[in-house]
């Protein structure tokens, strides 16, 4: 089962003192080992990179390159994705997250793993929260 990995999963895998840390590392580990088919996009890693370069969360140096090594090849944000994003009825989501949803739909993915509850407002996709143990286990079991 292919799922889409949101930026917060990547970031939380590298942030200490958070209940998200271990679940997000578990997700990244399953993808690394080829046990789970997690994909992400250029737009998601651009967000991670912005955060890394900003220094607003300290200690993220090198995170984007490492995440790329694990999650590459990335899904492209195509013309169709962007057109779909513009047409999405998703008031709880900002522009970036609408592009992520549209990227999923363009690539036939209807499952997003993310801590951001805003995705719950989009009927076309289902969100799994990294803290939801049973749902996470089912996702990683394929």
């Amino acid at each position, binding site marked *: 089962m292919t799922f889409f990995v949101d*930026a*917060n999963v990547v*970031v*939380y*895998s*590298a*942030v*200490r*003192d*958070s209940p*998200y840390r271990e679940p997000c*590392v578990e997700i*990244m*580990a399953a993808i*690394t080992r080829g046990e789970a*088919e997690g*994909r992400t996009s250029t737009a998601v890693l651009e*967000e991670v990179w*912005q*955060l890394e*370069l*900003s220094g*607003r*969360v*300290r*200690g*993220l140096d*090198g*995170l984007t*390159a*490492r*995440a790329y*090594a*694990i999650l*590459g*090849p990335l899904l*492209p944000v*195509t*013309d*169709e994705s962007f057109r779909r994003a513009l047409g999405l009825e998703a008031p709880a989501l*900002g522009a*970036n*997250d609408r592009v992520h949803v549209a990227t999923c739909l*363009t*690539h*036939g993915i209807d499952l997003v793993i*993310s*801590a*951001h*509850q*805003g995705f719950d407002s989009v009927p076309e996709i289902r969100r799994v929260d990294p803290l939801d143990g049973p749902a996470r286990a089912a996702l990683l079991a394929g």
Partner: protein
Amino acid sequence: MFSERLQILISPEQRRALEAEAERREASVASVIRDAIDLRLGTVDRSARLRALEEIRAMQGGPFLTPEELNREVAAEREQQFDLPTAP
């Protein structure tokens, strides 16, 4: 650079699936095949992927920000790059 030519036989079902995927992505069948190869076999070798995972596991980033705060920080970083005026 793509320099290696590979000729293979596939089933009609596989061909239909490839063409449907290419149409959905607005991409060529060749790019769909290349992407599938990269996804299955990886463009980065396994040891590099495992090393990247261990390096992430060792990172000690912080502070923790909520997803909404992360989105705001990314937006703020972009605004700063574009040197947009802040609201009064």
